């Protein structure tokens, strides 16, 4: 019988750099899984599914996720679903888990987000292999080179400067400084961001995410599966994914996030959100490159075209504003691959449960938006509206 899907547990490990990390990928995933089970209060034997993912070629194996599952210590009979959708794998874990639950097939499915970026000696070199082969791969682009096309076109359309693009980096770092699970917890000034080493015009190194090592896990349940668990359940009110053309050159316009705007209209309609700025209390968007964030806020209807930077400058997106954005510090401060893409869902769920670390908790948050994006030139988007479900 069809049911609604809820989130009823989350676990995160602290993050650090590959150089300082002393745990293996498996050990980090084990820590996150057991933290999520402890947070939820669910017994391992009550799970009836695992959804886990990996990214081809990023870990020196293409079966990383499959190898991990048996060694989590959760039993031998659990059905496993493995996703491999590149950079969007983490966000798609919850999309798949929720559909398994909604179909009535399963009641307690654990989404497992592992660290998938920290094996590659040169991550940009690995990412180049995910570029469209033959026609775009030979053109010297890693992920941040592709990411730079957006602010370049946005600057031309709206006159934004490097100083303008620095504002979301400054804010993300300020937020990350309060997040005990964040990797980069230093604060920055606009001047620090602008004067950092140029990577790919108009982006500097301070506008680009680090390679982090951490893991997380999220328990998705049916309504009956949530019964007896500890956290205030969070309803997955609406969620969807969307896709752009395969080639970067197939994008119609780099100055706007058209694909995300289309997806947002669909998800808002499903969730009956009519005025997102007023109706959403907390937001986590996937902006591993700082200039993406104002563009995403525009596509999500929080600001008019060209108005995203002003929205951030207004203070509305700070912890004490009316639309707190990326209180985790976002992927700009912590990006561990699959775990980095699951993180927006983990953090929004914790906010709505009231279980975020106290220094970053938004009081009384009831409805949140979580977003992920990835793939060549950010071809794929995923988005969800989550809602706190008060217990009767």
């Amino acid at each position, binding site marked *: 019988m069809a049911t609604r899907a809820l989130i009823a547990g989350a676990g995160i490990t602290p993050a650090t750099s590959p150089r300082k*990390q*002393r745990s293996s990928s498996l050990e980090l995933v084990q820590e996150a899984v057991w933290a999520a089970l402890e947070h939820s209060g669910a017994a391992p034997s009550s799970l009836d599914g695992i959804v886990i993912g990996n990214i081809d*070629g990023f870990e*020196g194996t293409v079966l990383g996720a499959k190898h991990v599952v048996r060694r989590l210590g959760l039993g031998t009979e659990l059905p496993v679903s493995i996703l491999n959708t590149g950079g969007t794998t983490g966000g798609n874990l919850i999309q798949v888990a929720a559909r398994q639950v909604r179909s009535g097939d399963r009641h307690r499915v654990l989404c497992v987000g592992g660290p998938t970026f920290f*094996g590659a*000696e*040169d991550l*940009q*070199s690995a990412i*180049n292999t995910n570029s469209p*082969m*033959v*026609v*775009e791969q*030979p*053109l*010297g*682009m*890693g992920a941040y*080179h592709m990411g*730079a*096309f*957006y602010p*370049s*076109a946005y*600057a*031309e359309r709206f006159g934004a400067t490097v100083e303008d693009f620095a504002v979301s980096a400054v804010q993300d770092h300020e937020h990350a400084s309060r997040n005990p699970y964040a990797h980069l917890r230093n604060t920055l000034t606009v001047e620090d961001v602008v004067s950092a*080493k*140029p*990577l*790919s*015009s*108009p*982006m500097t190194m301070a506008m680009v995410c680090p390679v982090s090592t951490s893991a997380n896990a999220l328990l998705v349940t049916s309504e009956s599966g949530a019964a007896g668990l500890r956290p205030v359940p969070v309803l997955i009110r609406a969620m969807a994914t969307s896709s752009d*053309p*395969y*080639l*970067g*050159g*197939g*994008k119609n316009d*780099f*100055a706007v996030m058209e694909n995300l705007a289309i997806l947002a209209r669909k998800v808002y309609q499903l969730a009956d959100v009519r005025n997102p700025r007023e109706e959403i209390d907390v937001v986590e968007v996937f902006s591993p490159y700082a200039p993406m964030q104002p563009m995403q806020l525009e596509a999500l209807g929080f600001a008019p075209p060209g108005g995203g930077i002003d929205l951030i400058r207004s203070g509305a997106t700070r912890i004490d504003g009316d639309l707190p954005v990326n209180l985790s510090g976002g992927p700009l401060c912590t990006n561990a691959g699959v775990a980095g893409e699951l993180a927006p869902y983990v953090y929004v769920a914790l906010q709505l449960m009231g279980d975020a670390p106290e220094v970053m908790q938004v009081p009384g948050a009831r409805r949140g938006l979580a977003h992920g994006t990835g793939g060549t030139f950010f071809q794929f988007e995923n988005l969800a509206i989550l809602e706190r479900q008060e217990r009767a």
Partner: protein
Amino acid sequence: MTITTQRVHWDLNYDVHLGATWGRFMAGLTERKILANRCPDCSRVFVPPQAYCESCFVRTGDWLELPSEGVVEAFTVAWQSFRGGPTPPYAIAGIRLEGASTLLMHYVRGLDLSDPSNVREQLPPGTRVRAVWAEERTGQILDIAYFEKV
């Protein structure tokens, strides 16, 4: 003492089968021709060509040759590269060839890349560029060596 990492190395070659559509495009490049094709429903022109229109979900129809000139719509200058990548700095652009509905990604050369702060003024809105062909052409995207300002 604790040992934390061990290096693993992949050294594998692959052959990507181009198929009829990209095969014809690559053959065109060897003759200094940039071939595109058109969706019979929405009339959009694709370069590189594609067998199906991703919007209308129909097979593409007639082929046409595009001029080797166009306009830079988006670009970046890579100040850092990656292992096995080109030597930085280099400029990459999304180029709208005349008559195309998609952008063709390629290198733009002939710019002064000595100072990050004066790159944008060298590629103002509407900058026209043209393809410069490689001497030896073997049917790959780098048969167009790069684009340069007209």
